């Protein structure tokens, strides 16, 4: 402990964006646009530089993690929560992704939002989001994480509803916020259980205590904590059944979709599961729930993604689907694979969203892919980076998405908690992912331009970019972040070669000693471990074979998309017609929104309006207040008769009172 670090001020990382948010929020209205964007860029960029410096210091130091305490927050009996930051390999990756991708998106947004009202407001919210997200990933305890967790929810709400004059945007913001409340409820109860059972919310202490626990044979309190955390993660990371808010969140400006609803905030749930790996690994039932939810979500979101025509909505469902992948990986205890995919996904999905924004920017705010096409000629740079991102997400080697997705599929197949079913569904999803992504690419950039000048920008657009005329390439301020992200999407996966990423994450992932043999999963685990050591060579072959399968799947999706949207463009409509019922079902997102609104929201609204509002509030609470006011009025109506305004009557009462007192005293004296 005598080693002195050259530079260790992690508090700077979240505080810098906060300063930016405060400056812009308090004075931005009066500042020129250049200065506003300058402030926002400087503070996020500085935060990124500081984060890089800390990453370098930590990796070159002998420590696996460093905890820095800045003050006591709550002390109640034996319970303590501090303002303290923890930098380890997990939060290091998260903070680099958040500040790095966040900075690039800030650069992009300065050009993208140039013609929008509320410029300073936008950057205030964006910087505020960065602050809360960094608190979330750098906190050293669950309670401080919860602060960041709620804060990013707030920033997300503000930014989805950025065009607050539009009803749909305001409603989408509300939907996101309220859906997240359901998840936060689970997270909070998980927190309470943690405090009750461990007496602390500090990660390191919880993990230390957990080393004394074996795997839970049945559903115990660790399973309960895991499941409740999963509820919270489902809300934040848009998993079944709480995923409905994310597609609607595309009402926000495109840079917001890229930063918050694709690259960073929605991965908070994955981060939480990875951070709580010591709990989840000991609760196989909770882990199984994570895997099942992740697998289902990735599958269903991918099917919906195939039918959507709004370019941002396709990407939104793709995000939900990819988050499902991460949950599947976490659910088979492959936390490092999950975080690896989180990182590569942040690169290529941010790139896809920003590219989509560039397309929308170039063709007068149009978002419907049926009105695009042939844009390759008009915006070659955007096409180039979108192609790279699509190849990356489809899992074509050697781009980033291939390495992480292949790792997830392999883990789903081979992990002691995995199963062939997860692998099979994941592989089908990979095929669909490749298909709908190339469908997007072909519909947008190939063929003939179907937009024209027919008041397209009046019909349907979230980002009011009122340029007229032919499609045009975006300015360099927007393209340069795209190019950088494209480079990251290409090389980002190389860190995973030879399990380097997995080894990097080793200090964060706690191994469970003495697994409980009475448990089915653990028995499987031992069996798998045994077979692993024996058939290592065979496994190597299997891994390569599965890798070949996933590459083949990716190309199959590409080929099908090419066949349907380039070679035979009349076919998709025919197929849709022949599968009428199924197509309608998927196009309308399995009627999930309608189902929720009839089964949950309508009764809830009725209960709130009729019972809570009109009965309890109006009759009960208001009644009590009103009745007491009426009673006071009635009593005073009698008493106020005394206040006649006649001075002499007052004097008379005083005299009479004095006389009574004197009479009483005299009477007392004579007794």
């Amino acid at each position, binding site marked *: 402990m005598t080693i002195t670090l050259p530079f260790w001020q992690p508090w700077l990382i979240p505080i810098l964006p906060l300063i930016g948010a405060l400056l812009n929020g308090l004075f931005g209205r009066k500042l020129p646009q250049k200065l506003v964007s300058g402030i926002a860029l400087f503070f996020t960029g500085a935060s990124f530089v500081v984060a890089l410096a800390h990453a370098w210091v930590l990796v070159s130091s002998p420590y696996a993690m460093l905890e820095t305490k800045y003050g006591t927050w709550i002390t109640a009996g034996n319970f303590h929560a501090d303002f303290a930051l923890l930098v380890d390999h997990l939060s290091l990756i998260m903070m680099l992704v958040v500040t790095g991708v966040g900075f690039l998106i800030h650069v992009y947004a300065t050009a993208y939002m140039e013609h929008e009202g509320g410029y300073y407001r936008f950057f205030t919210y964006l910087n505020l989001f960065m602050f809360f997200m960094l608190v979330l990933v750098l906190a050293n305890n669950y309670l401080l994480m919860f602060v960041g967790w709620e804060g990013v929810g707030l920033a997300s709400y503000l930014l989805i509803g950025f065009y607050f004059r539009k009803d749909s945007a305001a409603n989408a913001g509300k939907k996101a916020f309220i859906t997240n409340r359901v998840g936060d409820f689970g997270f909070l109860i998980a927190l309470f259980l943690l405090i009750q059972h461990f007496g602390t919310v500090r990660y390191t202490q919880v993990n230390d205590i957990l080393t004394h626990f074996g795997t839970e044979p049945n559903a115990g309190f660790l399973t309960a904590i895991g499941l409740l955390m999963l509820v919270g993660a489902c809300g934040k990371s848009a998993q079944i059944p709480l995923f409905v808010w994310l597609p609607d969140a595309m009402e926000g400006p495109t840079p917001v979709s890229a930063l918050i609803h694709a690259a960073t905030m929605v991965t908070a749930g994955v981060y939480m599961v990875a951070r709580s790996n010591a709990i989840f690994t000991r609760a196989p039932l909770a882990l199984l729930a994570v895997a099942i939810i992740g697998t289902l979500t990735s599958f269903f979101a991918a099917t919906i993604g195939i039918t959507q025509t709004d370019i941002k909505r396709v990407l939104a469902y793709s995000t939900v689907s990819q988050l499902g992948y991460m949950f599947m990986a976490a659910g088979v205890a492959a936390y490092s694979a999950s975080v690896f995919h989180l990182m590569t996904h942040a690169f290529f999905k941010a790139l896809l969203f920003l590219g989509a924004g560039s397309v929308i920017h170039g063709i007068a705010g149009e978002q419907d892919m049926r009105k695009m096409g042939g844009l390759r000629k008009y915006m070659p740079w955007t096409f180039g980076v979108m192609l790279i991102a699509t190849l990356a997400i489809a899992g074509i080697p050697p781009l980033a998405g291939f390495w992480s997705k292949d790792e997830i599929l392999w883990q789903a197949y081979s992990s002691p908690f995995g199963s062939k079913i997860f692998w099979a569904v994941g592989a089908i999803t990979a095929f669909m992912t490749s298909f709908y992504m190339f469908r997007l690419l072909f519909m947008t950039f190939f063929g003939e331009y179907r937009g024209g000048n027919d008041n397209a920008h009046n019909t349907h657009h979230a980002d009011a970019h009122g340029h007229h005329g032919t499609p045009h390439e975006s300015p360099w301020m927007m393209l340069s972040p795209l190019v950088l992200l494209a480079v990251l999407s290409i090389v980002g996966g190389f860190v995973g070669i030879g399990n380097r990423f997995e080894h990097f994450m080793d200090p964060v992932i706690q191994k469970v000693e003495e697994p409980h043999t009475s448990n089915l999963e653990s028995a499987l685990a031992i069996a798998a471990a045994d077979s692993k050591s024996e058939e290592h060579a065979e496994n190597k072959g299997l891994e390569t074979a599965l890798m070949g399968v996933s590459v083949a799947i990716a190309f199959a999706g590409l080929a099908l998309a090419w066949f349907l949207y380039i070679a035979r463009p009349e076919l998709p409509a025919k197929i849709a017609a022949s599968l009428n019922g199924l197509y309608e079902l998927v196009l309308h997102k399995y009627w999930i929104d309608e189902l929720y609104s009839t089964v949950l929201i309508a009764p809830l609204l009725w209960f709130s309006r009729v019972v809570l509002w009109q009965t309890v509030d109006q009759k009960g609470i208001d009644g009590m207040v009103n009745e007491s006011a009426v009673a006071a009025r009635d009593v005073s109506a009698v008493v*106020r008769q005394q*206040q006649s305004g*006649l001075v*002499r009557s007052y*004097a008379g009462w005083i*005299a009479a009172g004095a006389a009574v007192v004197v009479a009483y005293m005299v009477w007392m004296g004579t007794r």
Partner: protein
Amino acid sequence: MIPISWYLLLSAFLFACGVIGFLTKRNIITLFMSIELMLNGVNLSFIAFATRLQTLDGHIFVFFVMVVAAAEAAVGLAIIISVYRTRETLNVDRVNLLKL
């Protein structure tokens, strides 16, 4: 020596005169004079007891009452003048704006 009860009776009589005047008259100045009468009735009993008990407490009380009465007269008369200027009446029954 005159028994103390005589003083007290005279004091009570003065006080009663004041009360009756206060309750029956309508003119503010008359009411004012009635108040002075009541104060002096009280002063008389203070002095009577002070003399009887051979202490100074009663005297001090009386001085205080007289000082307060003098101040009250100054303020009160000023109020009466301004009431008369604004309302052109000294009838207390008509000075009742504060009534509900």
